[in-house]
């Protein structure tokens, strides 16, 4: 089953040239684009984070320590549809986009020691916008269109390893390889064939490595007498960020002639991303999490220059998951329901106004069997404002994914 799925997945990804779900937001012009966090349908349904959640049924890429509970080889794949409504002070639009979100595979190596390995691919940031302005130039008595677009982003290929200490402390470390192209296009288009249209392309080819570390505490609820919660854990994870190399090329195209204006090897300095998490369960059926994420984008440097349109990211996230009976046999017992909420001070600070994002989410995982689920999430996200020449954006994000578990490397005990 899983092998067939991987083949189908490979074909689909090949056809789509690994088309990550787009965002179609002018805000993605700034910094390295729209930041993506968990890329998991499970997390999307419960507030986007959840670094202390170490469930064996899902692969977490937020915290390398969170895979220590994997008991089966697990493959996850997710995609997303976004329905977007955008408005500024003079016009509005609505559109839909979609694409793949993430792919991950995890292997338990030693269940007793919580040693698991996972790797996967997901977007770290997405740049995707295209706007146009039609102009009638009275000086030259001609009409032309100015078109600005950006596309691409930075992808993260991760390799995580976890280990569980005897007293239940889970540790994790990961190697992140960042890569991707971020292209910014500025076009001047004429309606007639007499005049030459021009395209200016700023191409950034980014690559570099970074590290992730994570820790999840043992269950500390037992330390408190008559405490109403169970499985209380704290987590900290860190992505070190660091310097990525950037092959920059600036070209202009006039008619069919392309000239390089400038090219050099530069850098992208990704700031450290820190996530503090807390999770606990109540009545064995409810799992709650609270998370706080911080990333100092004011320290981001692009080719040595800071960006005045960026601010530090602060994100709080809350989510709850309900599963009637983890050990049950029926469809109802194993179906997982989720609700979530998050509030984020995004990295964008445009026209001196902070762009803040509020998100409400719900989700469900439908069991195909005990090990396999089909997951869905629905998020309503709103950010920005119409005032100050900004954009008010409302997203409805529909996420879907599949999580498959199968024994691959460990002989099943009979």
């Amino acid at each position, binding site marked *: 089953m899983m092998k067939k799925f991987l083949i*189908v997945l490979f074909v*689909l990804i090949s056809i*789509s040239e690994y*088309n990550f*779900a787009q965002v*179609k*937001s*002018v*805000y993605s*012009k700034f910094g390295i684009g729209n930041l993506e966090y968990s890329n998991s349908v499970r997390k999307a349904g419960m507030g986007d984070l959840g670094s202390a959640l170490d469930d064996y049924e899902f692969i977490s890429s937020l915290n390398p320590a969170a895979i220590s509970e994997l008991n089966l080889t697990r493959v996850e794949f997710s*995609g997303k*549809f976004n329905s977007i409504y*955008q*408005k*500024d002070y*003079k*016009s509005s*639009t609505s*559109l*839909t*986009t*979609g694409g793949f979100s993430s792919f991950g595979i995890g292997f338990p190596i030693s269940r007793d020691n919580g040693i698991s390995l996972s790797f996967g691919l997901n977007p770290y940031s997405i740049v995707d916008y*295209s*706007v*146009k302005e039609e102009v009638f*130039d009275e000086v*030259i008595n001609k009409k032309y269109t100015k*078109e*600005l677009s950006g596309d691409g982003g930075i992808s993260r290929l991760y390799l995580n390893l976890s280990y569980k200490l005897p007293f239940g402390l889970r540790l994790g470390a990961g190697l992140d390889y960042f890569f991707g192209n971020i292209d*910014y296009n*500025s*076009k*001047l288009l*004429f309606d007639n064939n*007499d*005049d*030459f249209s*021009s395209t*200016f392309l700023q191409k950034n080819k980014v690559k570099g490595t970074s590290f992730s570390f994570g820790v999840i505490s043992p269950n500390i609820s037992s330390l408190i007498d008559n405490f109403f919660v169970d499985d209380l854990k704290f987590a900290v994870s860190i992505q070190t960020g660091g310097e990525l190399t950037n092959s920059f090329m*600036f070209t*202009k195209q*006039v*008619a069919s*002639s392309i*000239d390089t*204006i*400038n090219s050099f090897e530069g850098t992208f300095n990704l700031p450290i991303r820190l996530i503090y998490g807390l999770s606990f369960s109540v009545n064995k059926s409810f799992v709650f999490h609270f998370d706080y994420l911080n990333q100092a984008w004011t320290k981001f440097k692009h080719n040595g220059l800071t960006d005045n349109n960026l601010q530090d990211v602060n994100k709080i996230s809350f989510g709850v998951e309900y599963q009637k009976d983890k050990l049950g046999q029926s*469809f109802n017992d*194993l179906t997982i329901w989720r609700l979530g909420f998050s509030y984020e001070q995004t990295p964008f600070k445009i*026209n001196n106004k902070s762009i803040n994002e509020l998100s409400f989410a719900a989700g469900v995982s*439908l069991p*195909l*069997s*005990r090990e396999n689920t*089909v997951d869905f999430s629905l998020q309503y996200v709103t950010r920005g404002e119409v005032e100050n*020449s*900004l*954009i008010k954006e409302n997203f409805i994000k529909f996420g*879907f994914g*599949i999580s498959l578990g199968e024994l691959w490397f460990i002989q099943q005990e009979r």
Partner: protein
Amino acid sequence: MILSEKLKLHIKKLFFVIISILVFFGCEDKITQVGEDLLNDDKLEIISLDSRVDNINQYSMQMNQVLALGNASSVILGKDTYLESKVLLNFAINLTTSEVTAVDSIRILSAYVTLVRNYSFGDSNGVFNFNTHSITSDWNPLTITSDSLSKLNYSSQTFSSDLRVEDSLVTFALDTSLVKHWFRAEVDTANYKNYGVILIPTVNTNRFIGFYTYGSGSTVAKIEVVKQKLGGNPDTVTYSAYSDVHIVTGNTPNYGSEKSVIQNGLTTGIKVVFTPENIPSDAALNIGTISVTVDTLLSEPASSLPDYIFANFLKDSSDIKFDDIYSIRLTREGNVYKGNAVAVVNKWHRDKTFYGVYLTSSSPIEGLSRLVVYNSNAVDSLLRPRLQLTYSRKK
């Protein structure tokens, strides 16, 4: 079994339908206007320059391009105050076998040349006369030019008489001794040569007449020869010209420092060089227009100005060498010839050198018409050659 097989199948189908929709229809490439104000720093700067108002230096000069006129559709003979056009003709004398053996005994009773008119320039009532000389050196209609004319040798003796200028024809008698010489040249190439004749307008000639050329069929120049073999009857034979060309010499009229002349026949054109400064090297040139203004009263013939002229991209600063790919057609709108020069200005911008454009007639070897163009010295800046540019660049 947690899930019925039927339900499981439905879920799988739903999932793969979603993925398929995502793969094939997932992305909507809609370009909107929402948020364009946030990208003001990214927008292209559009800058327009006009030589009439901006700092674009220019200069222009009249230049003569030496061209062979052998492919022109007329051979033109005549003269006026400024120009003189001579005609070179050579006839194909074909003798029969019996004529070859008895060439010395053949008598040439008469020889008349007929030229069929197809062009006229200048005063239609003016004097038209010329002398005919025998050419004594070789020439090639496709290579001989006004520059090489001085190397052409011809007799001082004139061989024509009985000139008749009619509405459609010009005829004249050719000295029979010259024709006999050509007959002998068919037999004895060592001692006799047939290089044809050169027709030179007389000093008092004051008009130009053009004639059909080799390649025009039955209207080509002909010589009608009446000959008689010893003891035979007179026989009339017509020989056609197989080689003809006209050569124009002289100067264009001087209309003062503000005007230059595009002169057909003399193949004179105007070199115009613009030197727009301060166009950044990273700019993309989107629009380029070159226009020139003509003096319609001084141009000739004023009643039928050409519909278009050419501005050819010069490859060299001192010589008139063109890059044919970058030839601009300037089309007439009233007294202004205007054309799209965007390819030319881009080449100039790319190469960082601009030797200018050479304004020339659409067919400089045809006829003798002249276009009087206001040049870069025109006092009224609105009459000077004009370059309009629009370029874009990233801020």
